[in-house]
């Protein structure tokens, strides 16, 4: 950028000098104007600073994103063997919304993994609804079994989590479950006894039938011998 600090262009000055008779080799003597003023220098410096700063900020933002995503990815992969890590992975990915740089690959990973965690949450919500339904139907044993058999991560909100934990921690529910287990055990034992008695009876019946067949055969053989 060139400026005309004295309000005149170098060509105007040259023309004036030519009129005044100042010439070099028959040509007007060109004025010794600076290439740029100090304001232009400052502007240029600021511009260069902005470009360099912007570049370094972009590199920093890119690196920060890469580091944060690597951390989240590690948590998500760990969660595949340790389900409790899903909560941490979800929190980690949710922190990435504030990052200044997110590539398409990162975005796809973030959307798909948060979606997968959301699916897990929905599955637990369904189980929660089933368990609460069972509780409402006064079937605390069924509710306990639903909650107790769930091996996935705890992804429910605070209120639902409290209800969920109440089902497994509630002493009355535990007593019901124990009573049901005892009942089931005694039923199983009684059934085992009944089964074994039935088996003995069946064996006796089979033996009696076999004996009678044998007797009949013997009788038949005797008759045949007599006839002969």
């Amino acid at each position, binding site marked *: 950028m060139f400026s005309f600090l004295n309000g005149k262009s170098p060509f105007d000055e040259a023309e004036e000098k030519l009129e005044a008779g100042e010439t070099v080799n028959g040509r007007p003597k060109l004025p010794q104007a600076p290439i740029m003023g100090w304001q232009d220098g400052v502007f240029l410096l600021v511009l260069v600073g902005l470009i360099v700063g912007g570049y370094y900020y972009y590199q920093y933002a890119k690196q920060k994103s890469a580091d944060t995503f690597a951390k989240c990815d590690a948590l998500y992969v760990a969660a595949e063997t340790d389900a409790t890590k899903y909560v941490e992975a979800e929190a980690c990915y*949710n922190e990435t*919304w504030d990052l200044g740089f997110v590539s*398409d*690959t990162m*975005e*796809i990973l973030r*959307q*798909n993994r*948060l*979606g*997968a965690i*959301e*699916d897990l949450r*929905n599955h637990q919500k369904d189980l929660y609804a089933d368990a609460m339904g069972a509780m409402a139907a006064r079937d605390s044993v069924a509710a306990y079994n639903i909650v107790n058999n769930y091996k996935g991560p705890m992804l429910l909100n605070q209120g639902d989590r409290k209800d969920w934990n109440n089902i497994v921690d509630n002493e009355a529910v535990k007593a019901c479950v124990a009573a049901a287990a005892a009942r089931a055990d005694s039923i199983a034992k009684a059934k085992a006894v009944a089964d074994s008695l039935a088996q003995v009876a069946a064996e006796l019946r089979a033996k009696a039938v076999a004996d009678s067949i044998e007797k009949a055969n013997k009788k038949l053989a005797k008759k045949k011998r007599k006839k002969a």
Partner: protein
Amino acid sequence: MSESIVERQEKIREKFASFGDPDDKWKFLLDLAREHKGMDAALKAEKFIIQGCASTMYLVPKFEGGKIHFEMDVEGGTTNPLISRGLGALALQVFNDMTPADILSVDPTFFQKIGLNVGLSPTRSNGFASLLKQIYLYARVFDALSKK
């Protein structure tokens, strides 16, 4: 002359057929989501929320000149549900500004057939199915009203 609904479907079918990498589909949906313009906040009433979506999806219909114009937007609270928005934008690429009869003529399994559901999380699949169901429902209602 405007594009017919069959031509629109064919374009989308071709687009999906051209995807070589599994990520291509996601990138396509992300691009659709980024290009999609949201809607006026005043239109975001509870009655326009699509039930069954993980994110809050609004679908506002406007029946004018025998065609249904849809406005769609997705809100995810602190998150940015780009895939859901992309899915919504994709549905509108087929159904927006079409007559109820056109909309009802579309095979409901079209998106499944082109492979949209592959790799899509169950929650998003269900949400998308709810969106389609709502579009068909609006089409049926406007179809009935226009015949009155």
